[in-house]
């Protein structure tokens, strides 16, 4: 191939990729951004405009006397979303390390099967799986029966509590953490663990000073993969939380649905996206810093 032909191949060869990105990512996001600046239609829908009132609405409400009053109710929702996202990520992390460790140290011919088991839930629709938890945690469900079997006292219900929501979220997203953590632990040179034990490091020291620092990239990747969908989640707060705990995902859903306030829903969606982008940028910077440090 000549230089010119190569150049034109590079240009035109990427057309399908750009087309896909444009159609599925850039254009839809641009539309949502546009809607967030539009005027609210009287019966849902919107009229194109350039109006920041939807964003203003996140922090202020219009008082009786037509003046803006600071109102933290949506900030509370954003904070709650972040808190649940972080909690889900932390719990997934704590549970994934031992699981991934067991898989990485399993017999060679068992590993593919164990990895397959981790990915198995993805074969069933998310809604069905969350509904399954509704039954497990519901009245006279498996959770309550097990609780009573071990002598637990009377419980009102497990359902529609923050615990139920967290359980559902951890359950939904933990495979996304286990896989990168497993990949990182698998790559870990077993001689390094032996070296740690040889140099008087017990299990805890070895975990803290050798395993965790060296698998940190996997943990960070898993944290991103869990945190990002977790802060946008809709199903768990709706079904398992009983809608009692409003989250950003459910807020957006209600604004486009019953609330008939598309511009406000779009504005919240943009805030959510900004949060995701900030997390991704911070992660990329940190990864670059680590790469610089490890570089020869």
């Amino acid at each position: 191939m000549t230089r010119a032909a190569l150049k034109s191949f590079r240009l035109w060869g990427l057309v399908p990729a750009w087309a896909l990105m444009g159609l599925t990512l850039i254009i839809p996001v641009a539309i949502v951004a546009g809607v967030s600046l539009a005027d609210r239609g009287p019966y849902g829908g919107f009229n194109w405009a350039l109006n920041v009132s939807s964003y203003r609405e996140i922090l202020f409400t219009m008082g009786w006397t037509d003046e803006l009053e600071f109102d933290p109710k949506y900030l509370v929702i954003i904070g709650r979303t972040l808190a649940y996202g972080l909690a889900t990520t932390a719990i997934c992390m704590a549970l994934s390390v031992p699981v991934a460790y067991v898989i990485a140290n399993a017999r060679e011919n068992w590993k593919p099967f164990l990895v397959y088991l981790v990915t198995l839930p993805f074969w069933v629709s998310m809604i069905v799986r969350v509904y399954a938890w509704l039954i497990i945690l519901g009245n006279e469900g498996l959770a309550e029966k097990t609780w009573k079997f071990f002598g637990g006292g009377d419980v009102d219900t497990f359902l529609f509590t923050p615990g139920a929501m967290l359980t559902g979220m951890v359950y939904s997203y933990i495979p996304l953490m286990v896989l990168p953590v497993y990949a990182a632990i698998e790559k870990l040179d077993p001689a390094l663990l032996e070296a740690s034990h040889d140099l008087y490091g017990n299990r805890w020291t070895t975990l803290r000073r050798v395993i965790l620092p060296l698998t940190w990239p996997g943990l960070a990747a898993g944290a991103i993969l869990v945190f990002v969908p977790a802060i946008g989640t809709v199903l768990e707060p709706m079904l398992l939380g009983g809608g009692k705990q409003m989250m950003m995902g459910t807020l957006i859903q209600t604004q486009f649905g019953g609330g008939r306030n598309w511009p406000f829903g779009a504005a919240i969606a943009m805030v959510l996206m900004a949060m995701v982008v900030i997390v991704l940028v911070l992660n990329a910077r940190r990864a670059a810093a680590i790469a610089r440090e490890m570089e020869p």
Partner: protein
Amino acid sequence: MARGKAVEVYNVSKRFGSYQALDQVSFTIHENEFFTLLGPSGCGKTTLLRMIAGFESPSEGAILLNGAEIETLPPHRRRVNTVFQSYALFPHMTLAQNIAFGLENLGWDRKRREARVAEMLELVHMTQFAARRPAQLSGGQRQRIALARALAPEPQVLLLDEPLSALDLKLRQAMRDELRSLQKKTGITFIFVTHDQEEALDMSDRICVLGEGRIQQLGTPAEIYEDPENRFVADFIGETNFLAAEVLSVEGDMARIRTPFGLEITARQKGLTGPGPATLSLRPEKIGMQSQADGHVLQGTVRGRNYMGGFTHYTVDVAGQPLRVSRRNALSHAESFEPGQTVSLGFREDSARVLAQ
């Protein structure tokens, strides 16, 4: 010289499934000794080392460290450190942090730790690299840091698992001398595992030759080379000619034998009890050629020649029996023999060894 016992190995056996890696191995390593476990791959030498470190446990038998049973001690409770074949330096730590790792785990205070790290870096001539990371080092430098890290906690015994195998030839030579002098300087017992017989002969106080899971011979380098216990050792250490021989009589450690050339000689023997077939081992450098032919003289024809610089190796055909002969090129115009040339060879009885077949 009465010396304390650093490591005692009693009747140790190790099975992996149906594979017998070690079979009833016993020996004692003295304090301040440079002890080498030598053998081909799969002979069980690394398994033995890993058992002393605590990464494997014997199927049978016992290992004592300074007179105390260590069976129940996990690796991190044994005052033994290892230089790993791959070095296993922690890639996320600086060299100083690598060396300090063991000291921190032993609970040394900061001041003492820093002094020791500096001392160790000095010992391996790496002081100016303290703040670097392992990825920034060459193979030889990594090797030195691995040594410094393992020596820093003042272990009772230092285990070295083929530490030179990843280095190039020149560096390997230099590191041999360095390891040897480090051992003398620190006075720590070194247990060195290698499959390289030259390394073993060069560095060790004593060598334990392992083969097929058993001790084939244990002795000083000279004993092992000059007086091999059996065919396995004679073959594995150095180069030799094996000739089929017939034992006529055995008297103590001497045997009267008939060689394939029809000669009858009396030579040192190992492992023989009476008349029957045996093997005669004759080292190539112990056979003289032409002007150097001494003792029993044979006539032969040069078949092949390998010029090695300091030495020339000849293959000489004697009555249909090929013999390897090594000749030192002592003078710059040393005489050289062409293939096809007839030469006389000579060997003395006292450099021949008779071994069981």
